[in-house]
């Protein structure tokens, strides 16, 4: 008779799993009319799980035979993911109704994807990592194709599925090489084995694992799917894609590279530097010519991933702190921007061209002001939060001696500033286009305004506590 494993560290995940199963039943029995109810209950479940994660934050705890880890790093990442999922669920309700895709499965799939992300950031084993990754990705493929009568949405889902499956295949190939050369799948044991010196097979495995993770965070050269999927997927889904899965995959990348492969930092550093450079440059230059706001945001998110990876490239505790702070700021910037995109509704249908924003300052000054704040923040203009995110990662890179990376990164962010500011220019100085419909839901307006306030006022004023939390989270990875 074996003793039961310790369930305490995994309570948030268990609660979320049970809640999503219960909501699936509610949806199945009450039919399509229950979408709103299931959505709100799902948001409530995410809030409860957020409280549980918060209350559960503590020192490192391993369970399920060392396959699951709960520590401050995981808690920090989980808080960001849960906030992102909860808010995207709330702001997508009206959109779902408008586009006639309001079926209760949507919320259930978002919940299950979130569960996968939580399992991902808590993974301490190559196998639990893979299952978390699949749970997340599979749910995302389905929601990408959720508007099944639209060709673009189906195409986005299919494209994402095929390339995502390729990414998973790469991961499995790499993981099997790592297993072959270390004889273990546990991160803890891999770290001790790797410390004895790298072998060629191990490095090949590591590169494959990194390639698949780069697929998931859509870093160059594995970014090809991003613009098409972001454009084709329903806007509410794009909002979800742009934030929560990115945060989860980036945190996972940090954990895998710094944790089990920490001793191989010389080997993976060059790869991360390349990925980061390429993402920053492509994200900046390719976005300049975009006409569709969702495509623009897709390239912008590729660029942001590049900036966040600058922190990881430094391979230091300060760098990881920078990544976490960057992600926290990225979360609010992007949620706010997508709330604006979800409010772009003219004549009873959604519009998504950048030129539809013309003269927004005169037709809807509040929305224009918020969107301008997000754009300035993404460009990294000083008093706003986005500046501090960039500051932390570049500071870490400079301290680690990566001068070339920092200089090119800053130059890329100057190019990126051009297209962010172009949006502001179109809103404030162009002749007004057709005004957007009034009467957006209160929730969207609230999320828009609240994110703008957080970006412009709260984070710059409350930098100390935020970096403190990020610091504590980063430190747990380096304790050994």
């Amino acid at each position, binding site marked *: 008779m*074996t003793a039961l*494993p310790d369930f305490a560290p995994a309570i948030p995940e268990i609660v979320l*799993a049970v809640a999503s*199963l219960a909501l*699936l039943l509610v949806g199945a029995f009450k039919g399509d009319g229950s979408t709103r109810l299931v959505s709100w209950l799902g948001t409530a479940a995410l809030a409860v799980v957020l409280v549980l994660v918060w209350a559960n934050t503590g020192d490192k705890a391993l369970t*399920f*035979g060392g*396959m*699951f880890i709960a520590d401050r790093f995981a808690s920090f990442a989980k808080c960001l993911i849960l906030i992102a999922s909860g808010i995207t669920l709330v702001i997508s309700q009206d959109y779902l109704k408008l586009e006639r895709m309001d*079926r209760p*499965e949507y919320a*259930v*799939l978002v919940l*299950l994807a979130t*569960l*996968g992300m939580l*399992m991902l950031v808590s993974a301490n084993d190559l*196998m*639990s990592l893979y*299952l*978390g990754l*699949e*749970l997340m990705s*599979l*749910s995302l*493929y*389905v929601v990408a*194709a*959720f508007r*099944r009568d639209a060709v673009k949405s189906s195409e986005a*889902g299919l494209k994402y599925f095929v390339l995502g499956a390729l990414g998973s295949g790469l991961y499995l*190939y790499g993981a099997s*090489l790592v297993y*072959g*050369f*270390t*004889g*273990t*799948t*546990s991160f803890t*044991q891999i770290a001790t*084995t790797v410390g*004895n010196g790298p*072998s*060629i*097979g191990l490095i*090949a*495995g590591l590169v494959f694992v990194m390639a698949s993770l780069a697929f998931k965070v859509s870093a160059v050269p594995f970014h090809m799917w991003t613009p098409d999927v972001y454009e084709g997927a329903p806007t509410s889904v794009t909002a979800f894609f742009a934030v929560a899965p990115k945060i989860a995959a980036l945190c996972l990348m940090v954990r895998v590279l710094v944790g089990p492969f920490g001793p191989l930092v010389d080997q993976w550093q060059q790869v991360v530097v390349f990925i980061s450079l390429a993402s920053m440059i492509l994200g900046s230059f390719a976005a300049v010519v975009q006409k569709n706001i969702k495509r623009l945001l897709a390239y912008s998110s590729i660029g942001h991933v590049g900036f966040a990876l600058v922190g990881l490239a430094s391979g230091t505790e300060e760098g990881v702190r920078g990544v976490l702070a960057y992600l926290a700021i990225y979360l609010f910037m992007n949620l706010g921007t997508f709330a604006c995109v979800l409010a772009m509704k003219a004549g009873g249908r959604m519009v998504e061209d950048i030129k539809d924003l013309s003269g927004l300052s005169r037709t809807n000054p509040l929305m224009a002001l918020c969107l301008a704040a997000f754009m300035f923040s993404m460009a990294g203009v000083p008093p706003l939060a986005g500046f501090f995110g960039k500051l932390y990662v570049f500071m870490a890179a400079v301290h680690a001696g990566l001068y070339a990376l920092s200089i090119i990164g800053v130059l890329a962010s100057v190019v990126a500033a051009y297209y962010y500011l172009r949006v502001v220019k179109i809103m404030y100085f162009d002749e007004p286009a057709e005004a957007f419909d009034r009467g957006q839901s209160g929730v969207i307006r609230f999320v828009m305004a609240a994110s703008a306030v957080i970006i412009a006022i709260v984070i710059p004023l409350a930098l100390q506590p935020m970096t403190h939390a990020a610091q504590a989270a980063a430190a747990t990875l380096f304790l050994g």
Partner: protein
Amino acid sequence: MIIQALAFYLFAAVTVLSGAMVITARNPVHSVLFLVLAFFSAAGLFLLIGAEFVAMILVIVYVGAVAVLFLFVVMMLDIDFAELRTGLLRYAPIGALVGIVLLIELVVALVSWKGASEATANLAVPTPPASTTQNAVAIGELIYTHYAYLFQAAGLVLLVAMIGAIALTLRQRPGVRRQKIANQNAVQPADVAEVRKVASRGGI
């Protein structure tokens, strides 16, 4: 001993040959049948190394369920297999290139796999001695005790696949009349039949 060796070479040869036939046969139904043959001979190989549980599962699950399902799909879907093959020649070189690169990597990795003393020392779950543990017991121990977490997670992944398949394909068609057994049973004679008096030389 010699019989065992003979059996091994027989099964191995059949597996490889039928595997090759699966992808070269012109008729897709023949492909599926060769797949079944490949499964059977692989099950034989498993039996030879003493993994009788896996061998039986392979026959029951793969041959009994999966391959039959394939057969149904191949027969019921109207897929033009000739058209599917048109791009084959065009994409074959790049596919071969990627395959060769991966093969070279594997070979390099294999060559540098020196004895793997660390790897064997690290094995998370060492193989129990075959003489004392039955292999069904060993598999059960692994899946339901050591890897219970992964087992549950895999269950969730399958659930998502099911939800996805239903959410993306199930359509409620209007105007389709379905059989409702309860309603049929609840029908009273008075609802469907009436007795009329028919006048002579009249009609209704």
